[in-house]
């Protein structure tokens, strides 16, 4: 009897610990974006303030050696997800267009800061002429990028920035507050200004997602005070986990939840799948950031109205063009715009950020026009 008792204890204790902690731990802390930066929600109406070009705050490259062919390495956060496959396709496209540019993509298998740093370090040693990166951590990656600048290597970021002085330029797909506004406006249109919603994100530490959520929080408080933000859950950059988390949210809130927002290109289609499998299409709206290929079936089936994203192919394409311009000297500190091949002229904001443009909204009308 005592034997059974001692066997029963561990699991009971485990369950008890969970329950105890459920009262002790707060469901979520206030959203800070992970970096304690202030939020700057845009105006609620469609009025836009022209972004400020500002004065150059990027880094400078020293001792660059001009050479016939420019060898460029593109280091995304990780390889193996559709989003970064698309950016590297854009880089390759630009490399084919530009004269004397060779570009390769090489990234860590997991979104690991140390692996990414080591990789970049090795490419510095091997003597590339330019580095494109999407940072896993803005601060952690900075020292190695500064080292690259000192070694005469041109450095341009895209998607996720590093500290400004650690790179020359950054191709900003969309401003944080702009993305937040687009997402919240689209959401409000679908679930109403008094609807309730939950969010599935990658991790609370992922810089871009954390900032978007912080901006959404601020924008919602300002423009849609009646909306109810139910909760936010983590699901890594993983399909299955995202699906399970979305499903649990649906089960937990049932009809009390009007919308689900996916903050990653992985989470959004997984959330749509969960809503489809729960037979709640039309009752729970799915919104979020997603690539068109991944959400096409759900838009076609009518389970999803639209999703928001910039074109990652364009982003990779622009990043290499910006790098080439910096190498050639056609883009210099203080410039207000830059030429980027088929994308035309791109605006420069916040000192050293190249703005890709407003995010695209994919819906039933235009989703077939894209392939990434």
């Amino acid at each position, binding site marked *: 009897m005592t034997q059974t008792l001692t066997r029963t204890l561990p699991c009971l204790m485990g369950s008890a610990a969970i329950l105890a902690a459920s009262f002790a731990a707060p469901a979520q802390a206030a959203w800070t974006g992970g970096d304690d930066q202030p939020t700057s929600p845009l105006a609620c109406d469609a009025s836009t303030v022209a972004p400020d070009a500002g004065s150059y705050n990027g880094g400078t490259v020293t001792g660059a050696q001009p050479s016939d062919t420019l060898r460029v390495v593109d280091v995304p956060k990780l390889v193996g997800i559709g989003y970064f496959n698309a950016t590297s396709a854009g880089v390759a496209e630009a490399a084919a267009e530009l004269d004397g540019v060779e570009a390769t993509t090489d990234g860590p298998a997991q979104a690991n800061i140390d692996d990414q740093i080591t990789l970049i370090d090795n490419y510095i*040693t091997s003597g590339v002429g330019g580095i494109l990166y999407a940072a896993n951590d803005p601060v952690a990656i900075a*020292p190695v990028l500064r080292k690259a600048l000192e070694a005469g290597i041109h450095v341009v970021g895209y998607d996720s920035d590093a500290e400004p002085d650690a790179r020359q330029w950054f191709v900003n797909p969309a401003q944080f507050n702009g993305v937040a506004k687009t997402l919240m406006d689209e959401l409000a249109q679908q679930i109403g200004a008094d609807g309730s919603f939950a969010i599935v994100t990658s991790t609370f*530490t992922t810089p871009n997602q954390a900032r978007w959520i912080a901006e959404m929080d601020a924008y919602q408080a300002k423009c849609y005070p009646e909306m109810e933000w139910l909760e936010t859950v983590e699901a890594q950059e993983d399909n299955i986990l995202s699906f399970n988390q979305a499903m649990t949210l649906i089960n937990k809130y049932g009809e009390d939840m009007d919308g689900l927002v996916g903050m990653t290109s992985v989470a959004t289609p997984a959330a749509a799948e969960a809503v489809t499998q729960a037979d709640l299409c039309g009752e729970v709206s799915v919104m979020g950031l997603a690539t068109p290929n991944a959400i096409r079936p759900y838009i076609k089936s009518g389970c999803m109205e639209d999703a928001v994203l910039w074109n990652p192919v364009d982003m990779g394409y622009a990043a290499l063009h910006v790098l080439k311009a910096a190498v050639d000297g056609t883009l210099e500190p203080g410039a207000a715009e830059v030429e980027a091949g088929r994308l035309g002229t791109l605006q420069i904001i916040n000192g050293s950020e190249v703005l890709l443009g407003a995010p695209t909204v994919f819906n039933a009308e235009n989703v077939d026009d894209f392939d990434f």
Partner: protein
Amino acid sequence: MLRRHTHEAVLALVTLLAILVLSLQSDQFLSVANLLNQGRLMTEVALVALVMTFVIASGGIDLSVGSIMGLSAILLGTFWDGFGLPLPLAMLAVLVVGTVCGLFNGIIIVHFGMPPLIATLGTLALYRGLAEGISQARSVRGWPEWFARLGQGDWLGLPVQVWILLAALALAGAILGFTRWGRTVYAIGASETAARFSGLPVDATKLAIYAVSGFASALAALIFVARVSTTRSDMGTGLELDVITAVVLGGTSIFGGRGTILGTALGLILVQVLENGLSLAGVKGDGTIVLIGVVLIATLLVSTLTERRARA
């Protein structure tokens, strides 16, 4: 001599071969600057691997090192930025916490008799969970210049952490090879019962090994934070696998009783040389991972078969 160190000999040969082949592939590979830089990059893994050699040679294993590293990094930020401790004091406190985490592993292994693999699998989750829970996803940045030098600066022409690494290497090599404690570690790994019946301090030694493993992980965390100048709760994820790969590649028997610091050093060098050299030669990261896996299995295969033949 050779019979006892077959594995190290095989490994040295493989390493030399790798260096030779890779130096033909890239001019930068054998440059002083590159080699020093590799020393900087491998310090964290190497520090933990040196102590892991003791852990594995004593018949144990410690899967929680990566999580202790993450927890230490987060606590450094919390102590310094959150509690406002002076940074040197915060560093000291983190080293103490790391040691205590290791000691906790030791206690549940020694006094409660849990298998090390499972005990540290549990604390792997526990310590990482604590790191995530305590940090609440916040990073601490803005470290003072002198602290950053620990991970980014040079001293007398060598990267600062390479000095630490060299000192640790000499110390670990001397202790395992030439002291009473080293002998005790081997004896425990070969037969814990016999070591106990010979009056050797078995429990104290095992506790100390796990505690030092925690200490090394915390030290690695300090260096890593200084190198990347931020703290994150996911720091050190997967570190345990890199460390165990290097140690096992270095010839330390996973069953205990055998292994040398020289072997571990060679294992570390071989892995680093492959990662760096292949990258310089234009092989992508994923190809390198495959090759390290192949080298790990092949080296152990060769040395097992050689030994088996020598014994027959």
